[in-house]
């Protein structure tokens, strides 16, 4: 079983022009530490906003939570999952983009359809509600 030293792999991959899967495991202490520190900050801010009730506007707080969550997902993708456009000859990125597209359709489509379903329901009185099966 041949085991090549990590230093050879970069030259090996550069020579072949495609990755042999080692990308997924490749991180440095610096990249993991950077990702960790950023994650701690990006986690602490939304918890602090909600728990200490900093902002008066719930809508603004919600928008900040979602924005910071999205940023943190990107941070995890880059520093922990080592996502880049080169790994597996770009196929992991293609799969990711396709998945994001499907997720966007599933989420926005569900919300859109169900919102309209709710608003177009026949009005119901409390008595009718009580007699529901």
């Amino acid at each position, binding site marked *: 079983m041949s085991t090549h030293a990590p230093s050879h792999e970069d030259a090996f991959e550069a020579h072949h022009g495609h990755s042999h899967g080692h990308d997924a495991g490749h*991180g440095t202490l610096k990249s993991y530490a950077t990702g960790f520190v950023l994650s701690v900050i990006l986690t602490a801010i939304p918890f602090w906003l909600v728990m200490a009730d900093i902002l008066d506007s719930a809508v603004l707080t919600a928008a900040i939570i979602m924005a910071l969550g999205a940023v943190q997902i990107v941070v995890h993708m880059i520093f922990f999952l080592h996502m880049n456009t080169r790994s597996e000859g770009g196929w992991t990125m293609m799969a990711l983009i396709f998945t994001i597209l499907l997720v966007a359709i599933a989420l926005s489509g569900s919300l859109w359809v169900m919102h309209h379903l709710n608003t177009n329901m026949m009005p119901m009185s409390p008595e009718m509600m009580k007699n529901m099966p």
Partner: protein
Amino acid sequence: MTEFHTERALDEGQAPAFYLTEEHHPEGSTMLGFWLYLMSDCLIFAVLFATHAVLGRNYAAGPSPADLFDLPLVAVNTSMLLFSSITYGFAMLAMERYEKKATLTWMAVTALFGIAFVGLEFYEFAHLLHEGAGPQRSAFLSSFFTLVGTHGLHVTAGIVWMFVLMAQVAKRGLIPENKRRLMCLSMFWHFLDVVWIGVFSFVYLMGVLG
């Protein structure tokens, strides 16, 4: 080419050995295949998130997130998963340096953080059930238990996988097969942390916000 040792051993009249030898896989295909599995898992979670987005406000005159959720507990839970991500990173760095003992130690630390996470989740669920806020109470609680429970089930599977790999590494060392397996678990573990970002942001924080 893989072959069962048993078969050949029986032909030669030896005691069978029940393990599988495999040739060194071309690792590119394994990692891409595992990534595709994670993306399909991502779709499962997307559907559960969509369900929670639709049903998450239907309390059926029952308790709302603000009544139920204990945010300090969720914050501790989140930090457990975050710590487990960095310690798994340390295990991967030790693996790259071919330090078997350090790899095993960091994997054990990661598993402990994972167990702490699942333990806290069990505590939370038990507390909710005790208060009569079980999955059958309202649509909100049904979707909550399904989404958070599915994530917890994934973490539990990851912990089992972690112990299996620790045994593999302890027995056979950091051979290419074990390195490949460790990298798959790395992706799985970090992916679960990514899903948890969605859970604590959307389910807990936005839920309490009302």
